[in-house]
């Protein structure tokens, strides 16, 4: 069996399914909003780089911004559940199949990291007292990316999930240490330290027990990747429901338990449990933190208001992806619940979550009232808060109309 071609065929089939949706993504209003914000950000960033404030913690900013993309390592293997049966006899030859996955994993993610690095570079050279040479910095990032992805790949092969979790923590620690040393220590010392740390880390990866091919883990990881792509597409266009990754999140297991015990709360119960264990919650938390940081930075300005409203809107889109969950479940058709109750349950959850998050995001904007001349900021701060609530209400109304129409067309 030609395994290299098999992977190529599967990749082509996957993108053949996804590409037709991209047209709708570009046509959608959200894409225009993204473009508008990109232009607004570029204008703001250019002006910021021209007038960099004194004592800007540049090295810390570099570390915070570069670390997530340096650490993040994922792979598209295009494996399917049936491969455990049909490709198992080829296990010893699967290296050729996976080589493409590893290569693409490094190339595309390093391309993203490089774009981020190039964007940050003007800020870094202008504000850092002792900047590192551009090429050396870029090569170090490449080395870090390869080591991180290699580590992430080895974690997928580990027999025990506990080992994989420990090694993931170790990888994060190693990368943060290397980047921090590189940013704060003299170049020669940092390079020696980074090399020694990388070698030790790579050697330590030999310790845990590993499968030749971690079939179950790889198949689950691939399923989660496809689920994520479809989840992102579902923000713009209707896509077939895909199984999404589920996170146990035991500490949040209580969510939904206190809903009133009545028939009409069945769907709110199911959708609340689903939300807390889905990818959506993680995305919401990350976006809220990112939004809060940016809004805090731009507090009390018109651009800050625009960014705030953008984040409120995007958070609404994220929660509304909950609608895709269980839409095709057998039990939704069989259980004796009034038609449309799932739609109503999701609409209520979207409204509540978006409202709470819009209030949370408003707080860093309202921090402008703590600065100089607070009275002059009052109208903008209050107006921004009201606009956030309005965006939430209007978005919910438009969702209600859209989903009702979809349901009516379906039945």
């Amino acid at each position, binding site marked *: 069996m030609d395994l290299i071609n098999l992977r190529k065929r599967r990749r082509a089939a996957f993108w053949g399914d996804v590409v037709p949706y991209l047209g709708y993504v570009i046509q959608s209003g959200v894409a225009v909003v993204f473009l508008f914000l990109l232009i607004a950000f570029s204008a703001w960033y250019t002006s910021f780089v021209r007038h960099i404030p004194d004592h800007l913690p540049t090295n810390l900013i570099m570390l915070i911004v570069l670390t997530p993309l340096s650490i993040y390592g994922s792979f598209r293997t295009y494996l399917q559940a049936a491969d455990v049966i049909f490709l198992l006899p080829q296990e010893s030859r699967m290296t050729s199949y996976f080589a493409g996955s590893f290569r693409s994993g490094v190339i595309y993610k390093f391309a993203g990291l490089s774009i981020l690095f190039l964007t940050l570079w003007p800020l870094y050279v202008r504000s850092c007292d002792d900047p590192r040479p551009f090429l050396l910095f870029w090569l170090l990032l490449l080395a870090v990316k390869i080591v991180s992805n290699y580590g992430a790949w080895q974690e997928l092969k580990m027999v025990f999930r506990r080992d994989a979790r420990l090694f993931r923590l170790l990888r994060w620690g190693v990368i943060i240490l290397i980047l921090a040393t590189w940013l704060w220590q003299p170049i020669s010392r940092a390079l020696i330290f980074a090399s020694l740390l990388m070698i030790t880390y790579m050697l330590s990866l030999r310790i845990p027990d590993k499968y030749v091919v971690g079939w179950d883990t790889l198949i689950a990881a691939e399923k989660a990747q496809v689920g994520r792509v479809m989840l992102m597409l579902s923000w713009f266009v209707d896509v077939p429901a895909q199984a999404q990754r589920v996170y146990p999140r035991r500490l949040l297991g209580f969510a939904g338990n206190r809903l009133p*015990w009545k028939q009409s709360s069945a769907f709110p*119960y199911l959708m609340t*449990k689903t939300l807390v*264990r889905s990818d959506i919650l993680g995305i919401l938390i990350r976006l809220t933190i990112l939004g809060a940081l940016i809004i805090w930075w731009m507090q009390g300005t018109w651009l800050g208001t625009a960014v705030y409203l953008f984040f409120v809107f995007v958070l609404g889109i994220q929660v509304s992806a909950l609608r895709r969950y*269980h839409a095709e479940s057998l039990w939704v058709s069989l259980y004796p619940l009034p038609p449309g109750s799932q739609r109503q349950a999701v609409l209520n959850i979207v409204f509540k979550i978006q409202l709470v998050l819009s209030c949370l995001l408003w707080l860093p904007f309202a921090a402008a009232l703590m600065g100089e001349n607070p009275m002059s900021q009052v109208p903008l701060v209050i107006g921004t808060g009201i606009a956030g609530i309005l965006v939430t209400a209007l978005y919910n109304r438009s969702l209600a109309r859209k989903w009702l129409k979809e349901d009516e067309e379906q039945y």
Partner: protein
Amino acid sequence: MSQIPVLEVNRLSGGYSTKRPVLHDINFHVEPGEMVGLIGLNGAGKSTTMKHILGLMSPQQGEIRVQGQSRNEASQSYHSSIAFVPESPLLYEELTVREHLEFTARSYGVDREQFEKRSERLLKLFHMTDKVNSLSMHLSKGMRQKVMIMCAFIAKPPLYIIDEPFLGLDPLGIRSLLDFMMEMKSEGSSILLSSHILSTIENYCDRFIVLHQGVIIAQGTLAEIQAQVGRPDATLEQLFYILVQGGE
């Protein structure tokens, strides 16, 4: 006054295409407190019949009534009268065992006190007490099937539609299920059960419906089918072979 059958299937024809119906003029009924075995080869139309009863497929001809009502007349009340156990467990990956039971109980309007009582009993009966807080993705196939069965029983409706319930169950699970079905039956619930394990259901079902190529070729008690085939001492398995293979 005679009792209304819990389930009435009258002159049902249906399938995935109007040109090639899978079911042809199916007639049968299930009385309160009765357990009826639906048997047939793979592709005979058992699951299609069940899908029609559940309202997942619309009949091309004929009608189905549960507790005297059709699905079009009163959809919500029709569905509250039925609980279904599918052949392959269909669980929400995001829910634990207890949460599945709770979602079902809320959906069927079971009150909290009843829910607590029934869930405790079912968890014990199916040896699932220590798995109550496990997410369904961490359960074995047999355990997933037990969750499906417990969900159906927690609702306690008048009619159970159970498709191949023994698949994947361990011997203790099979025994618990059979015992519990008998208990439900004695309390007045009706069960329409499809299974290939004829030797087991022979001892538990009151009547049998033999489906072959979408047509009912025999139905009645074991004695009635024995009389129809002309083999008074034959087991259900022997009768089934004779009926579907023309006595070969």
